[in-house]
């Protein structure tokens, strides 16, 4: 048997390859990025048998995947949890249109917010869209569930959501692989109106989705990913979802606990299995990586007769990811640590790289803003968000992709002057362009600084969709050409940058300053590659 050491993300990627996908669509976002990257490195992508290129954002990715599915071929679309907010319109409606070729939406949640602005639980989106959700507990399951997800998607003609969380996404384990399925040929929907969601069609399609709900529950009851282990001690029944099962087993394997355990990996929630463990046990403990979704169901509005414990009752913390220690405490085990870090240790937060162009922009911006007062700089999501921290303390917002421009506009509408937006090139093409058009249409007095390092830097340097096109895009949207300025953020250009920032802040209309310099990380990598291929030589 073919066995590979894979990250959870890579196991999904390999699963999708072996499920016979013809395309994968994604926008980079921790902790989901490695799914696309793994497929891009595969021979199928290199030979052009799998389309594997980054999209401008999660919505365009979701729609392209749906288009591939319409044409009868299998498609995977991947994103981080907040990316599903961006893709939500297409995602929700894909449940109504249904699919042609198998369509799997892989979403990586980030409980504890290691690299995110919230810890929303994507299982709720699955419930919202009323589709099947799969949630692996380990890398092997991530692989098998991806294969299974494509089968379920084609069996029911509906998209399937595959949800993982950070720890599984970025943890390696051996995975046993299967033969690759043959990809689909092109085929069009039997009903030419299936994807035309005019109200008359949508009403029919929605009834079809509703008619599948009982089938979905039946699939859950018999799914190999939902397992009930009847113990010998009925005092406690433990329900786990996803990776929580591992933390439970970590604790059980050391003691000799014999409680009833229900492991859930496929949704809708298997009603009969839940009833079984509830009836068999005196009390229930729910362990979920994420929000208390199963727990809320169990508790309902009218309290059940038996005690149910979990995140809502304090046995498990209300927020943050689980770990073996949290689960041990929930089980009532005593946790002992022998050592505590001494109190003189200092934190080491991430920081902008030495030599990064963002540093030069913030230095110049801080000098200019001394004359205009504090808290007037809206920013966005990327490496440059680190400019909120010392030593820069330059920016005052980071909310969602593209919000810097529109928040600056709204603040300007309210009378705040000046109102500045700082946004990266990839975030701008992801979701900033439409906001800039709003500002242009009203000639809002805002100054937009686009940090153009020609890459998606924070997630490791993926290809940026607006590479080399940022000034043209701004001009094309209608920003006055003389107010689209390009600067090279280098220490030697400090004075020039200060001057240009001042001039454009003084202009009472939309101005854009594009600070163009390659990311120091991608530059270093590119140079190393050139030296290695002997295209350039280094003289010492």
């Amino acid at each position, binding site marked *: 048997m073919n066995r590979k050491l894979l990250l959870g993300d890579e196991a999904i990627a390999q699963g999708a390859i072996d499920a016979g996908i013809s395309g994968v669509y994604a926008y980079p976002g921790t*902790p989901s990025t490695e799914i696309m990257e793994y497929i891009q490195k595969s021979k199928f992508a290199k030979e052009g048998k799998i389309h594997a290129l980054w999209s401008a954002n999660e919505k365009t990715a979701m729609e392209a995947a749906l288009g591939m599915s319409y044409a009868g071929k299998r498609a995977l679309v991947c994103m981080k949890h907040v990316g599903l907010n961006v893709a939500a319109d297409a995602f929700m409606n894909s449940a109504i249109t249904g699919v042609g070729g198998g369509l799997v939406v892989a979403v990586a949640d980030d409980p504890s917010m290691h*690299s995110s602005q919230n810890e929303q639980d994507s299982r709720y989106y699955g419930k919202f869209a009323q589709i099947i959700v799969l949630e692996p507990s380990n890398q092997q399951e991530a692989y098998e569930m991806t294969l299974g997800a494509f089968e379920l998607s084609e069996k029911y003609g509906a998209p399937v959501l595959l949800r993982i969380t950070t720890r599984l996404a970025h943890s*390696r384990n051996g995975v046993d692989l299967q033969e690759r399925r043959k990809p689909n040929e092109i085929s069009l929907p039997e009903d030419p109106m299936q994807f035309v969601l005019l109200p008359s069609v949508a009403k029919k399609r929605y009834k079809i989705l509703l008619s599948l709900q009982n089938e979905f529950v039946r699939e859950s009851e018999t799914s190999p990913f939902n397992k009930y282990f009847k113990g010998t001690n009925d005092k406690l029944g433990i329900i786990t979802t996803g990776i929580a099962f591992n933390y439970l087993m970590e604790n059980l394997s050391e003691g000799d606990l014999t409680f009833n355990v229900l492991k859930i990996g496929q949704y809708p929630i298997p009603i009969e299995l839940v009833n079984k463990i509830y009836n068999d046990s005196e009390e229930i403990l729910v362990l979920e990586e994420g929000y208390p979704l199963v727990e809320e169901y169990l508790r309902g509005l009218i309290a059940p007769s038996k005690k149910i414990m979990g995140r809502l009752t304090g046995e498990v913390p209300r927020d943050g990811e689980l770990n073996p220690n949290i689960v041990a405490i929930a089980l009532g085990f005593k946790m002992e*640590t022998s050592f505590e870090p001494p109190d003189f240790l200092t934190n080491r937060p*991430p920081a902008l790289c030495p030599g990064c162009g963002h540093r030069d922009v913030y230095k110049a911006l801080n000098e200019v803003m001394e004359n205009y007062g504090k808290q007037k700089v809206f920013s966005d999501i990327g490496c440059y968000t680190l400019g909120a921290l010392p030593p820069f303390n330059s920016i005052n917002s980071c909310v969602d992709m593209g919000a810097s421009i529109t928040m600056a506009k709204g603040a300007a509408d309210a009378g705040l002057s000046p109102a500045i937006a700082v946004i990266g090139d990839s975030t701008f093409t992801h979701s900033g362009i439409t906001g800039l058009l709003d500002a242009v249409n009203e000639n809002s007095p805002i100054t937009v600084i686009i940090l153009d390092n020609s890459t998606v830097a924070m997630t490791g340097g993926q290809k940026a969709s607006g590479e080399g096109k940022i000034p043209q895009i701004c001009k094309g949207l209608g920003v006055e050409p003389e107010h689209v300025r390009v600067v090279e953020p280098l220490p030697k250009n400090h004075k020039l940058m200060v001057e240009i920032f001042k001039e454009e802040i003084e202009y009472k209309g939309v101005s854009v300053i594009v600070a163009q310099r390659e990311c120091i990380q991608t530059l270093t990598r590119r140079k190393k590659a050139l030296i290695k291929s002997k295209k350039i030589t280094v003289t010492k």
Partner: protein
Amino acid sequence: MKKDIILAGVGGQGILSVAAVIGLAALDYGLVIKQSEVHGMSQRGGAVISHLRISDKEIYSDLIPEGKADMIISMEPLEALRHISFLKPGGWIISNNKPFVNIPDYPDKNKLYEELNSFPNSLLLNSDELAKKIKAPKSANIILVGAASLYLGIPFENLENGIKQIFGRKGEEVVAINLQALKLGRELAGSSA
């Protein structure tokens, strides 16, 4: 057989190649591993940690429970102490003693050394200097792996195979230098044991 190892350092210091060498060595020896790592924002010069679990039986949790780690291998003295709550009584600390100062309030390094030396099983190595001495400045990490090798429960030749697998595509010279670094670490740990 079960070894739980916390790998610590600063983003960019290469804890992932240490994890890869030990992980591949464990696989080469016929064991199973789970290894979780940090991607994303912290990689920009922040504190990073990797959990490496090696066993001859199925491993469930991707994370090591606090108070259960057999060893902390750290590229940096402050980072060795940051994760000290993971260490079990009698566990080993193997750390580079060279501070990586990218924060304004880095603690007094002598206080760090004092604290680290107060553990009965700690080994602080000047691996940066040692690596320069053998003309392998990039192999300070591998010297630490060599030092740790006495306590890993994996035969030395499997670690050598791990090095060959990781560095093989970079050429024989790079493999040879790293094998030398591994051996040096082993000898240093042996002589101080």
